[in-house]
């Protein structure tokens, strides 16, 4: 599907979602809808997003976004899904590891660095930092006078 076709089909399916344009089609959704939207994107043969390329978390100081980069191997089209988590203090989102297994470690990484809890993830431990590490290093308000040297 081309970008325009993808966008128009997605608009009819998810009327509450908004779009952004750059190199990709960006689908902005709320974090509560993530499982519903992702299941539809994976199962619907019209899209057939069978691989999750990258899962990143972004700290926008007031909220988080979880960015899923999806790719369809049969159609060669790509889509960025951005799930907004409004609660910065107690960030929670549903896991997608049951749809794309590769998300298992990506979600553990996001939990380790940002403290975003992935609900129903069976093994949500820190991935890189030691288990007793204090705080979440990639958050914008993270302070560490010893290890971070300001240039």
């Amino acid at each position, binding site marked *: 599907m081309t970008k325009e076709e993808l966008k128009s089909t997605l608009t009819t399916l998810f009327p509450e979602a908004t779009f952004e344009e*750059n*190199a*990709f089609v960006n689908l902005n959704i709320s974090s509560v809808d993530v499982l519903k939207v992702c299941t539809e994107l994976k199962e619907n043969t019209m899209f057939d997003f*069978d*691989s*999750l*390329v*990258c899962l*990143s978390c*972004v*700290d926008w100081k007031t909220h988080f976004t979880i*960015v899923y*980069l999806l790719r369809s*191997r049969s159609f*060669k089209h790509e889509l*960025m899904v951005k799930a907004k988590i409004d609660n910065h203090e107690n960030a929670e989102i549903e896991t997608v590891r049951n749809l*794309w*297994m*590769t998300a*298992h*470690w990506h979600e553990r990484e996001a939990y380790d*660095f940002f403290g975003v809890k992935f609900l129903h993830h069976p093994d949500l431990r820190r*991935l*890189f*930092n*030691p288990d007793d590490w204090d705080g979440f*290093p*990639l958050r914008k308000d993270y302070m560490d006078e010893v290890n*971070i040297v*300001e*240039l």
Partner: protein
Amino acid sequence: MIDVLETKDTGEFIINVGPQHPSTHGVLHLIITLDGEMIKDVDPQLGYIHRSIEKMSEKLSYRQFIYVTSRMDYLSSHINNQACSLAVEQGLGVELPSRAKVIRIMMAELTRLASHCLWYGSTGLDLGAVTPFFFGFRERDEILDIFEDTCGARLTMNYIVPGGVMYDLHPDFQKKVKQFIINFKKNFHEYNDLLSGNIIFQNRTKGVGYISPQDVIALGCTGPVARGSGVSCDIRKWYPYEGYENLQFDEILETDGDCFARYMVRLREMEQSIRILEQLVDAIPEGDFQAKTKNVIKLPKGEYYQKVETARGELGVYLISDGSQYPYRVKYRSPNFSNLFAMKTMAVGQKIGDLVSVMAMLDLVIPDIDR
């Protein structure tokens, strides 16, 4: 450095491999559950060489953060630099001179060859043969000499920068690459003679560490690991960048999905890299090696994503700019991260001795996983 942690009542052992085990090629720590000799579970413990390159990149300017990426997958440092430069150039909207593009492709393919040569050597070493190490390093050294002439470094190159490359090529570059191609073609049959046809090597790799194409896609494997299971995923073919679309080369696919298939993919890929070099070595256009860019780069507010094919698979650079001199967020989707995740699928049900074959054929570079 293998020590037994505990024995359960069921007769299962839990043992630690690493973080200082020679076959892990770095500081990787695996907790393995064993039933006799059979592997029941593998749990990799990461982070021993975690330097938080993503956090560091947020404090560095768009010219500076590229140097840090050489330290991620240090065997593909040219290609890491290339991925970041391409992402920054996307934001700048500069058009590269054709000379810079060709130089970049040649450097990338030489890097791929050097990386596969090292992998070939260390694979032989892991599986008990010392000679492949000398063969692999003989060719690798020749490539590193070519790199050293042009960019002064042998490992962390920092040669590809936003807007092109840092310096022009060394006057001897073409001559040396041509000589290298001749030498490589002359020597390449030794690679096959020594390991590919070796019955001991085949017994240790054929049918070992099988992974199905469905699992490859679900677990997000890329690069030779995925292509060994017959899953096409070469970014150079799927989403061509920097003029790969104009070059003649094949995407190598093997369908067996075992360690030997992954081995064959890498060996045959080396021939394709040579093929690309042959097409370009006499066709380096004259002209500038750098496009004009400002000293202080400020990207327009927005998001940029660039994917390239490194020696190990798909590297993605996700760059978010808030309009200032520094990136707001940088995320690296590193190929080894997802490939290592698939190790559990490959290793469970195998004997403990086969774990070394599985790890060797994943071609792990730990700093790329930990970042």
